């Protein structure tokens, strides 16, 4: 398990770095799919197989494909996307470094917390995570769920309007 965690970590971080550093957007897109897979691996490690599946289906399958499609549609593969502004790079690294430091400090300072919920791994495995999530979505979270579907509908129409000449 630990070995898997480290492997996934290395893959995820490496591919994330590649996403932001390669010139060609198409390559970036491919690396991000790799990253998505690594994250899906984490979800499995965390006993959330359903989410892992969704990660692959939705992110790696749908979103990444749309991106690649767009890149190819606009013929962007050759666009120069290199980092030219060194100045900006330095400032960006400093800012992000600070951000990182702060978050890490937070995590460090958070301290131990007792689990409050009832959904231990045992229960999840007994009932099945898909079923639990499904029950939640159609009971407690039914309203956000419907809103989300409306959002998707709006997004579809919006994308159509934007892309239309």
């Amino acid at each position, binding site marked *: 398990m*630990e070995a898997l965690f480290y492997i996934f970590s290395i893959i995820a971080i490496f591919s994330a770095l590649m996403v*932001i550093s390669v010139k060609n957007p198409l390559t970036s897109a491919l690396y*991000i799919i790799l990253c998505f897979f690594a994250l899906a691996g984490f979800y499995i490690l965390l006993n959330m197989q359903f989410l892992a599946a969704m990660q692959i289906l939705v*992110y790696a399958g749908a979103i990444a494909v749309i991106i690649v499609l767009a890149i190819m549609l606009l013929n962007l593969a050759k*666009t120069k996307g290199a980092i030219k502004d060194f100045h*900006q790079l330095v400032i960006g690294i400093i800012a992000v470094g600070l951000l990182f430091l702060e*978050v890490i400090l937070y*995590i460090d300072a958070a301290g131990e917390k007792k689990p409050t919920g009832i959904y231990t791994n045992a229960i999840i495995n007994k009932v099945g995570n898909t079923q639990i999530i499904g029950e*939640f979505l159609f009971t407690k979270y039914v309203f956000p769920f419907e809103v989300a579907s409306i959002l998707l509908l*709006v997004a579809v129409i919006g994308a159509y309007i934007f892309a239309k000449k």
Partner: protein
Amino acid sequence: MNINVNDYLIVATIIFCIGALGVLIRKNLITIFLSLELMFNAANLGFVAVSEYLNLMSGDIFVIFIMVVAAAEAAILLGIAIAFYREKGTIDIDKANELKM
């Protein structure tokens, strides 16, 4: 050595920061979008890890909603990218400066 929730969170933080860095330093609209997706995913990872640690389900449910939003966002953003490209002939973000008064 046992992997605990902090380790997941640290990984999530690293990915998030990489995403943020990408947003800050890249000028390509598509790459920026990809960096944003990275940040989303980092957050998702955090949600799931904490949710598992506290024996809750709400974090997982949230992830699903985030995915929905991300999908919607992807659709819209790519629509915008196409419109932008049609307008300017490029997707260099620095060309998008019409918000100026």
